[in-house]
């Protein structure tokens, strides 16, 4: 943002353009029941949600999709997603998803969990579900904190990260090391697809959307467990101004939880 820009004239933005123009993309992500979003300013979670919702529509599986939500800020999406939903307890979504999928093998079941939910409380759940090769897709929104409770350290917080209960930064000696969950899951035999994306820039968002696409596609093709980790900004839990979110993410979480595809079953 250069200061110069604010000197320029203002283009009216209240109404659709009166000139010949076509709309590109939707304003609101598809499959939403409300435009309201109960997230903090600058939160990365709704951005990540859009990548999932758009893919469900584009893959043509929206009408058979089941969401199993963990407990974290994203839980607020339960009411707004126009998707059959089972709200799981904290950490338990992969098992709940397993139960749904086994009874309804034709449904497309995905979990939406945070790092606190998946890598803390429910680490075992996701690993066992992956090793079992369960035909579900797990999506992790990793912001390196418990956003919902106010920004505490999770098992993915990176060394040096300042959180509510590691106020001088996460110290390996006292608090241990972060877990790179996608790397762990990629080690397991039951998995078909593992990737890690981010939503801190338009480019990263586009890549992430493709990852989610592939993961869901694997489920459609019944190739096994698929997993996408998405790094999301949490300015509230990081105690930084919203504008610094993307860069902070790149400098901290992004350095440890590096983006890319880790496992793609042919």
């Amino acid at each position, binding site marked *: *943002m*250069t200061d*110069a*820009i*604010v*000197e*320029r*004239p*203002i*283009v009216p*933005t*209240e*109404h*659709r*353009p009166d*000139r*010949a*123009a*076509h*709309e*590109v*993309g*939707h*304003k*609101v*992500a598809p499959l939403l029941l409300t*435009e309201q*979003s109960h*997230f*903090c*300013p*600058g*939160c*990365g*979670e*709704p*951005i990540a949600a*859009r990548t999932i919702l758009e893919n469900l529509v584009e893959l043509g599986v929206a009408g058979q999709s089941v969401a199993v939500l963990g407990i974290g800020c994203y839980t607020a999406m339960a009411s707004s997603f126009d998707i059959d939903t089972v709200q799981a307890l904290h950490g338990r979504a992969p098992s709940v998803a397993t139960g749904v999928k086994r009874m309804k093998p034709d449904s497309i079941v995905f979990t939406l969990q945070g790092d606190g939910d998946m890598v803390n409380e429910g680490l075992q759940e996701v690993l066992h579900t992956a090793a079992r090769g369960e035909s579900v897709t797990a999506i992790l929104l990793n912001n390196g904190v418990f956003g919902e409770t106010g920004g505490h350290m999770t098992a993915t917080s990176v060394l040096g990260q300042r959180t509510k209960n590691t106020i001088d930064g996460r110290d390996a000696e006292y608090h241990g090391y972060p877990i790179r969950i996608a790397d762990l899951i990629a080690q397991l035999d039951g998995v078909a697809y593992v990737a890690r994306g981010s*939503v801190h*820039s*338009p480019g990263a*968002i*586009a890549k992430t959307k493709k990852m989610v696409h592939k993961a869901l596609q694997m489920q459609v093709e019944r190739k096994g467990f698929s997993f996408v980790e998405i790094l999301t*900004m949490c*300015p509230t839990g990081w105690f930084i*101004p*919203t*504008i610094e*979110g*993307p860069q902070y993410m790149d400098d901290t979480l992004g350095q440890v939880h590096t983006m890319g595809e880790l496992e793609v079953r042919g």
Partner: protein
Amino acid sequence: MKVLTRGTVTVDVEQCKGCDMCIPACPPGVLSMSREVNGRGYRFPILHPGCTGCQACQQICPDWVFEVFRYEEPIELEVPES
């Protein structure tokens, strides 16, 4: 000076939470934050000439504020020399 403008956006001011993230995300840098606040007390983005209709703002906005359009024919908008 004329600025080539391939697209435009609408801004749903009341939806905005003033996070500023769209500002640096806009590749041609044609967004800036308002001086006023909306009904919830948040500042919101303002568009200046030069939008490419690239959707970057739309993609990064957590609050579904932008609708993006591409003009069938690009237009030129007048801006003062800076």
